[in-house]
């Protein structure tokens, strides 16, 4: 590990979960003649537009008790803006702007200038949002603001840097995604399966052929199209006064006022019962399952469903049902979690979800960390069993109060840094949910076990699930799934009788898998185009 990365440009490519299934002929998006209402589709999730903040809307959270200034620039552009055949263009453009130097300074000189400040400058591109976050000690603020804004308004677009960053992006797909992290591969696979034919389907970092087709001219043109004033929200926190707000706003006024029209997102078709098995050499089986949902922040069911999924399990929290039942009681793996919104771990900030992953069409997912292959189907059945149990019976009052207490306290940890507080405030502009976390804590006081169960019944039907597995014996797994045969399990240590009795049910738990919709694909060709 480097002692400290001055310019840590974290592309969503490395960690994020975009992508498209390796399908020779992806389904085309549905065509709807303009002006005609979209006919409702069973299980489909239409694109209800997000709210649009004002161009260059300012979000300021000043506090004098820190010497560190945070700047958070969120552009309403992401991998959905990648033209067909040029997948990866938005992420590479953002990265080249941030890292490739400015008209005044080469990439090396930019590093040199930022270095003694230990300033942070990170870029994350997601499906619909690109976030540039900067942090710096106030000792260096004027110089930093100049450099940071220059990367956007006067990027260098250096051909050598373009080639370097493209090579890295290709490595991230060919090696990082396909080979080096089965869990992330499973999650990107789930995006690919759920959003087949939709602009969310391809990996945020790009496809191999998409990246190979890019030119520097593509990047220059794209920057003018999507990094525009009308797509920008400016967040400032820490010791920031009116003067600093003015400086940032004035500088960024040099961006184009407008650019490309917004991409119109099609309805996402149901993937209920579909399965994708990504085959690769590996010791274990990683499992992801989920579905696309119309549920977003602001929907009356959002908070109770978020509550129910926290009950199943937040990342690395011991009180989750899945963690307790599958890991603690049965020793199946290292952890098992569930999320009401798309989840990408905010590394370096605990185990929380990132902010500014705003999406028009969200997904709900369950994630099982790698299990030994023999237990792959059993673990999947277990997850589905515990999901369904929340529909069948309300939580006991004791359990309900435990989860409620947990969320009242734990949600406060989500907002302990300036960047995260800015992130939530900026999310709220797009979802129309001011004071989102306070609203969640208020809603918790009104919920009951029955109101949560009712929302679960409305929103969390297991029949909607689609499944992704990453494993070596793909055909063997496909056969097991097709047969629907029970998946017995043996343990190396004695288990209590009530656990063994519950296992008898889990072993036979019906998986909502359609035998005719199981697809096996080699991981080595995933996200080729």
């Amino acid at each position, binding site marked *: 590990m480097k*002692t400290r990365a001055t310019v840590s440009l974290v592309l969503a490519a490395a960690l994020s979960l975009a992508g498209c299934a390796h399908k020779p002929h992806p389904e085309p998006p549905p065509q709807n003649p303009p002006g005609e209402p979209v006919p409702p589709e069973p299980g489909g999730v239409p694109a209800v537009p997000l709210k649009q903040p004002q161009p260059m809307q300012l979000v300021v959270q000043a506090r004098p008790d820190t010497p560190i200034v945070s700047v958070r620039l969120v552009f309403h552009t992401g991998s959905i803006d990648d033209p067909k055949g040029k997948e990866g263009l938005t992420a590479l453009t953002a990265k080249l702007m941030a890292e490739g130097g400015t008209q005044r300074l080469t990439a090396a000189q930019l590093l040199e200038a930022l270095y003694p400040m230990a300033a942070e400058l990170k870029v994350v591109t997601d499906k619909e949002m690109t976030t540039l976050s900067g942090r710096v000690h*106030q000792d260096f603020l004027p110089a930093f603001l100049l450099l940071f804004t220059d990367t956007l308004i006067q990027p260098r677009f250096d051909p050598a840097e373009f080639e370097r960053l493209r090579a890295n992006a290709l490595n991230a797909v060919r090696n990082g995604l396909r080979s080096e992290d089965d869990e992330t591969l499973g999650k990107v696979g789930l995006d690919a399966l759920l959003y087949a034919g939709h602009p969310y389907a391809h990996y945020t970092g790009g496809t191999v052929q998409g990246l190979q087709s890019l030119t520097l001219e593509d990047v220059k043109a794209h920057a003018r199209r999507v990094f525009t004033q009308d797509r920008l929200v400016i967040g400032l926190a820490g010791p920031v006064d009116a003067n600093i707000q003015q400086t940032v706003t004035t500088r960024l006024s040099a961006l184009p006022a407008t650019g490309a029209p917004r991409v119109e997102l099609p309805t996402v078709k149901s993937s209920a019962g579909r399965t994708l098995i990504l085959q690769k050499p590996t010791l274990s089986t990683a499992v992801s399952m989920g579905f696309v949902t119309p549920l977003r922040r602001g929907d009356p069911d959002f908070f109770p469903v978020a509550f129910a999924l926290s009950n199943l399990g937040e990342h690395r929290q011991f009180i989750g049902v899945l963690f307790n039942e599958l890991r603690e009681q049965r020793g*199946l793996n290292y952890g098992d979690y569930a999320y009401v919104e798309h989840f990408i771990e905010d590394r370096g900030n605990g185990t929380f979800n990132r902010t500014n992953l705003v999406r028009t069409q969200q997904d709900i997912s369950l994630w099982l960390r790698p299990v030994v292959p023999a237990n792959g189907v059993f673990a999947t059945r277990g997850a589905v069993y515990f999901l369904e149990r929340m529909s069948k019976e309300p939580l006991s009052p004791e359990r309900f109060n435990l989860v409620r*207490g*947990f969320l009242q306290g734990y949600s406060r940890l989500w907002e302990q840094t300036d960047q995260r507080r800015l992130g939530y405030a900026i999310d709220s502009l797009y979802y129309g949910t001011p004071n989102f976390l306070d609203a969640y804590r208020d809603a918790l006081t009104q919920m009951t076990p029955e109101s949560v169960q009712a929302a679960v019944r409305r929103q969390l039907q297991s029949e909607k699930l689609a499944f992704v597995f990453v494993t070596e014996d793909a055909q063997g797994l496909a056969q097991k799934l097709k047969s629907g045969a029970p998946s017995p399990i043996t343990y190396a240590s004695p288990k209590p009788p009530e656990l063994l009795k519950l296992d008898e049910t889990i072993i036979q738990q019906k998986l909502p898998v359609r035998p005719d919709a199981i697809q096996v694909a080699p991981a080595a060709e995933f996200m080729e185009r």
Partner: protein
Amino acid sequence: MRRLLPLLLLLLMPVLPASAEPPPDASRFFPYTLNTTRLPNGLTVVRVPFNSPGIVAYVTAVRVGSRNEVEPGRTGFAHFFEHMMFKGTKANPEGQRERILGGYGFDDNAFTTDDITVYQVYGPTAGLEKLIALEADRFQNLEYSEPAFQTEALAVLGEYHKNAAGPDLKLEESLAKTAFTRHTYQHTTLGFYEDIQAMPKAYAYSRSFFERWYTPANTTLFIVGDFNDAQVVSQVTQAYGGWTRQPTNVTIPTEPPQTKARSVHVDWPQPTQPRHVLAWHTPAARADTADAAIQSILAEYLVGDTSPAYKELVLEKQYVESLNVYNTPHRDPYLFPIDATLQDEQHRAAVDAVLRREVKAVAGAPVDGARLKAIQDHLRYGLLMDLETPRDVAIDLALYAGVMGRPDALASYLKMLGSVTPQQITLFARKYLEDTNLTVLTLTPKATAAGGTP
């Protein structure tokens, strides 16, 4: 635009402190007050006020890590034992801890390194009193059944599987096994795969592990955030007062000096990028020497973002995707490993030549004072910026204290960072970055699957 021109000028000037009379360096870069008490049983309790209304971090550092795994067949045990610490006591059987802490919304976790095990709990001050009682209870009275122990061993196996997909674990294992012949740093914190598979059979050993290492004198508490200090000291004193377990003396084998260059090669059966690692044995991180600070600075000097090697290999020739030094502080003499991730196998020799050239240069010619100053600023401002939450502060304090053995080790490290001279860098490089003291690790992907790196 015009009004911003002065900013550009400022950029070109040397960095100056903001105020005319700056506070001493350590307090400027670590602006927190440590209140330290040592209880009669040897437990050290450090409290740090932090402006985080209603929120507290409670971090316990035990000086035990994979370094302490001296018996053959027991690698990975310190880490496994960290998992067992969540399995309950007579007063608070398994599940009780989760019910109490979970109900407050605490984030409850732990991690293990080569040298230390760190338990970190972070959440509402409202639950602090109950948290103190639970922590004091488990460190004194941990009790778990053999079946629970056997089940948890499988979670550790799952953790190994999670980490085994990428090449880093294998790299770390191969480097450790080659560079160390006697010292326990020859195995990773996760442990050898075969030892992990055999863990379920080691119940009795696990009990002795607890008795041996989980003693008050081997443990430091860091409580950081918003709380009433007097109340907390009184609660901690009472809750931990009965903990009287005495330390056992276990000798950690000493690594003999390396006398000639070593190498190891790994063929990785999946797509990945080639790796080229140069690792020299270097001295331990101690609170009373500058060695840890020198190694942090040297890493930046040799391969940091503004180094000649970075400019040539990453930016200009683009032979290398990234350059890193894994120079985490270690309690015993460890390694200074430069890790280059190559774009292509064909550049290996050229990359090796540049890295060796830079190492020779730092040992043979005077160190650039301006670069040293920029590195010192970079590291110290960077550390300050990383301390955003009470948990960040508590964990950084625990990491340095756990390795160096003094509760204020982070402050002494920061002070050293600011005072390292060009001569110290040169002498260090001359003494330790020698060919006879070097292990070279190479990794080449041998993927048969389509689409892999050739």
